[in-house]
């Protein structure tokens, strides 16, 4: 019995961790290129979930098709936001970038509220009620799929960053944007690409959890805060740090909620962060600050 509960919590942790990892990956990529703490990133997760929801419920689209379309839409929105909102403050002090992101966060959340109201909706999915059993525990196929699809997307992104020419350029800009520019790398195209990829990933995360948790305008806040914790612990700009950190946080939170206190579940992450930063002020995997 004890192990079953433990395994159940670990599986919950893997599901939530997948979401944290996907959101944190985008956040860390954007930070690496533009040095902006993009609070608005959580809203692309929310809008991605809503876009999928409407395509499934209004137009009766297949859930995977809807998810892909939502990813495309959010990639487009990411490019537009990068061009119109973030690029103009690129050379301003860092504080301004953060404030712009906060402004965008507020605009998108309240627009969603005006358009769709505050009620919590469940994204209908054929996999939400089907269950499978193994090792004395049962879980819905949806949860399994969240994990599998997340791992697949994260793997694809990893290949993109490590193996393609564009990925190489992204890494170069993250390392030193000034030198990269001098070497003829088109900085603006790189930052637009990073925004597109990150936004699509966030949208996929939103679409994946839609059938498990509910879809509502304020859903973006919690994952973005957790993603910040993840990338600070994992080291700003570090891709393995974001993936690893996301899963560790997800599992730690689930176990903490199961065994310690569900009331303070959301507090563990912040407490862990404070402890880590007190010991190592630049995060566990962080390089020395630039």
């Amino acid at each position, binding site marked *: 019995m004890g192990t079953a509960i433990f395994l159940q919590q670990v599986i919950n942790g893997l599901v939530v961790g997948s979401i944290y990892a996907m959101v944190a990956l985008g956040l860390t990529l954007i930070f690496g290129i533009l040095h902006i*703490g993009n609070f608005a990133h959580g809203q692309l997760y929310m809008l991605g979930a809503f876009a999928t929801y409407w395509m499934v419920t209004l137009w009766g689209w297949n859930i995977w098709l809807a998810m892909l379309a939502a990813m495309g839409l959010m990639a487009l929105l990411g490019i537009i936001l990068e061009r119109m909102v973030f690029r103009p403050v690129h050379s301003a002090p860092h504080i301004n970038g953060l404030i712009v992101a906060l402004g965008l966060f507020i605009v998108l959340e*309240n627009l969603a509220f005006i358009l769709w109201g505050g009620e919590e909706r469940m994204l209908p999915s054929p996999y939400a009620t089907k269950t499978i059993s193994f090792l004395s525990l049962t879980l819905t196929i949806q949860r399994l799929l969240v994990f599998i699809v997340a791992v697949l997307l994260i793997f694809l992104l990893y290949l993109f960053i490590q193996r393609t020419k564009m990925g190489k350029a992204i890494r170069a800009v993250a390392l030193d944007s000034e030198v990269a520019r001098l070497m003829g790398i088109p900085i603006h195209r790189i930052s637009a690409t990073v925004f597109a990829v990150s936004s699509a990933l966030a949208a996929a995360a939103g679409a994946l959890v839609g059938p498990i948790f509910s879809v509502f305008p304020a859903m973006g806040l919690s994952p973005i805060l957790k993603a910040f*914790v993840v990338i600070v612990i994992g080291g700003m700009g570090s891709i393995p740090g974001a993936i690893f950190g996301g899963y560790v946080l997800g599992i730690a939170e689930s176990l903490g909620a199961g065994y310690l206190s569900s009331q303070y579940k959301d507090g563990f992450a912040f407490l862990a962060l404070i402890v880590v*930063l007190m010991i190592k002020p630049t995060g566990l995997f962080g390089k020395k600050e630039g």
Partner: protein
Amino acid sequence: MKNKIGLVTLLTALVILPFFLSKTLLHLAVIIEIHAILTLSLCLVVGYVGQLSLCHAGFYGIGAYTSALLTFAHWPFWITLPLSGVVSGLFGLFVGFPSLKTRGIYFSITTMSFGVLIAMVLNNWISLTNGPDGLSGIKSPEPISLFNGAALSFKNPIHYYFLVGFFLLFTVLVISRLLRSRVGRAFIGVRNNETLAWSLGINSMRYKLTAFIIAAVFAGLAGSLYAHYLRYICPKDFGLHESFDMLVMVVVGGAQTLLGPIVGALFVLGLPKFFGFEPVYGRVAFGIILIMVMIFMPRGIVGKWQEYFKSSRG
């Protein structure tokens, strides 16, 4: 000289103002005054130490809860008010010491974590704070009797306006004196070039911590003033959104001057009311204006204004 005349006119206007305001506008004026204390103190950390703190609302909340709970235990407001500043200041020391070891975005995220934790404790420590329902029935400050039997009863919002106004003036005086002192010059030195300041023998950590603690003390005072004005507080008033809003007020107004944070509070709180927006529409407009201000006036409204006057003179 010209500046002095301007200042006297402004102060006179602010003294006469409450007698001409409607009930709603008077309420708004008191809230703006309280936020001006908050933004001025936050400005010490943001503008003069150069660090973006996201837990100022936490100190504000600690002040509010300290004062409210102590008056429930029959302590007089005039004692709980300074005490709430002291308690918030202690939390400032406790939060500031680990946070200030980090810099830039790391500092923001660390302070954000403390802010979230404070709000979480206010929400979940139900036996002390009554949880999400908040504390109601907080009493008004005890009246002060003046000559001839006249008294300042702070149930009257006009009297409260002057009470908060007095503390706002006090905040302005303390902070402006501080910035012109040796300590203040050290703050600016630390902001401009920490390594250089360090090499000149300025212990930057000590100065940053001092600024952080002073800011927390004023936030605590503001919290107490808020609790006994509204006479109802709940954890939602002191959460992350409130910290975001304060930061926005400071940066939109301009963090490099003392006028900036006050203008920011006036602008951010006053504008939606001025247009009579529904709250949700107001938030959307607010977010858009925020983005515009940052794109077109990177140094805030007051910074832009100064630039304009400099260029028109030169």
